[in-house]
């Protein structure tokens, strides 16, 4: 069914009959698929809302009611407690120490797994699958759950948080690193293999220098994620500023908490800035 164009202006001289736009094909099947997906998504959302006990009235009383966040807790949190600045900074430094140590050990672990975990350099397919499986398992156990185990073993301490974050980080960074190697230019690798270099020599002299910048970028990118995780772990017994926040909240002391949160935001923003700056220098 061709449509005719409405003519609003004069046609240029010599142009023939007006071209006709072919009729727009009707997307029969595709439209049905979209409609079906939309209905399914809606059903899923409704189920989820009921499952979590969602309630709009509860949301509004919780936020704006007389005992809610803005009328009750915010006034009790102000002004921030000035005498908690140094304890807060001190604890935030502990949290930073947890983040930096777990990144360091995580990078060592991830690089150590690289020769097996990257498909293009692995000596055997089963070893590759095994390395990737280990990483997938480490990645899928949340660091919080890992910490619960390590708290039993090491007691309540930032050290337990370091161990938990290191293992989880090997799962995450190990995969990111391996994917970086799988995308690298293989020509230098082939060249050194042809020159009779051993597997380890090829890894040290072609693979690592080839992906060094990418890996450093990924590591810096993970640093602020690790810091935020370290805060969360602190609240569960891993020490640092997360621990302080949890303590004060338990006794409804909101003013110190405000101080800690300001310190936290400053730390996270500073780490983000520095990591972005360093990454932009990596070229």
């Amino acid at each position, binding site marked *: 069914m061709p449509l005719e164009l409405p003519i609003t202006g004069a046609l240029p001289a010599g142009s023939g009959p007006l071209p006709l736009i072919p009729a727009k094909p009707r997307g029969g099947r595709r439209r049905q698929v979209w409609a079906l997906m939309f209905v399914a998504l809606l059903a899923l959302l409704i189920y989820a809302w009921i499952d979590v006990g969602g309630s709009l009235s509860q949301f509004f009383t919780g936020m704006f009611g007389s005992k809610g966040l803005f009328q009750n807790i915010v006034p009790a949190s102000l002004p921030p407690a000035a005498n908690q600045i140094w304890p807060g900074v001190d604890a935030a430094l502990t949290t930073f120490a947890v983040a930096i140590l777990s990144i360091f050990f995580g990078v060592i672990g991830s690089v150590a797994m690289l020769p097996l975990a990257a498909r293009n350099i692995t000596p055997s397919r089963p070893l590759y699958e095994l390395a990737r499986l280990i990483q997938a398992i480490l990645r899928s156990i949340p660091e919080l759950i890992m910490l619960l185990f390590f708290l039993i073993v090491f007691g309540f301490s930032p050290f337990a948080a370091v161990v938990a974050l290191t293992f989880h980080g090997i799962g995450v960074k190990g995969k990111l690193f391996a994917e970086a190697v799988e995308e690298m230019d293989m020509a230098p690798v082939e*060249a*050194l293999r*042809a*020159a009779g270099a051993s597997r380890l*020599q090829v890894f*040290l002299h072609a693979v690592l220098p080839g992906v060094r910048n990418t890996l450093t970028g990924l590591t810096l990118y993970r640093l602020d994620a690790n810091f935020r995780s370290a805060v969360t772990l602190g609240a569960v017994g891993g020490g640092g500023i997360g621990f302080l926040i949890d303590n004060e909240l338990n006794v409804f002391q909101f003013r110190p908490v405000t101080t800690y949160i300001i310190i936290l935001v400053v730390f996270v923003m500073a780490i983000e800035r520095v990591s972005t700056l360093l990454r932009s220098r990596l070229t």
Partner: protein
Amino acid sequence: MPFESPLAASKVSTEPSRAAALDAPLVLAGIRKRFGPNEVLKGVGLELKRGELLVVLGANGCGKSTLLRCAIRLIKPDGGSSKLCGEDLAKLEGRALRRARREAAVVFQQVALVKQRTAFDNVCAGALGQLPLFRSLTPGSFPREVRERAAFALHRVRMLEHAWQRAGTLSGGQAQRVAIARAYCQQASVILADEPVSALDPRAAEEVLELLRDLADSDGLAVLAVLHQPDLALRHAHRVIGMKLGEVAFDRRSADVSQDDINSLYGHLHEA
């Protein structure tokens, strides 16, 4: 960090390897290779002599590059033998194969340097096959002898003044010369070059072939190059082998190669 003068390096003698005694360090016989239904090599043989630049010509898909890879078993041939300095690579595996393969150095089509490292470090890496692991953990731990050899190799390809430049910043021609220096630093008796000039401009291509010819003439290396440019081949090679459909079509001194020979290699594409 100043490095040792190339003159000092020239005192480092290139150890006469067991290859030196042999007149023909690379002898291929009856090499066959099939990829699925395609028989790419149908029994190819050739002899590469010391001090000779031998060029293999042929249309795309005639099996030149496969032949070169089969020669040092980067690809495993289905049949035939490849004797490198007297050792039949077809009979070797693993460590023994790696050891035997050191006698051949390869220069690739796309420049296969580690871009993030300096030209000098890339050249040193040519010697990795001869170094124990603990002497090769980082470029800083390469022994003095290797560093001297690398400096001399760079001098040999006239790239010494670019020694500390990162390989990623070199031009195509410069980078290919560094790759040749790396092959030289490997101290192999045979250099195999797989279309070494196909990414280069005519002048850089000319320089690279002059260099390969010079390595054959002055150092007595046996050089085998796969090329796509008949004119370059005729001008620089001692000998030319023409390949067509997986077989040797002719094998002559370059002075004896006629235009008909050349046409016969590329002609069938037009006939079809």
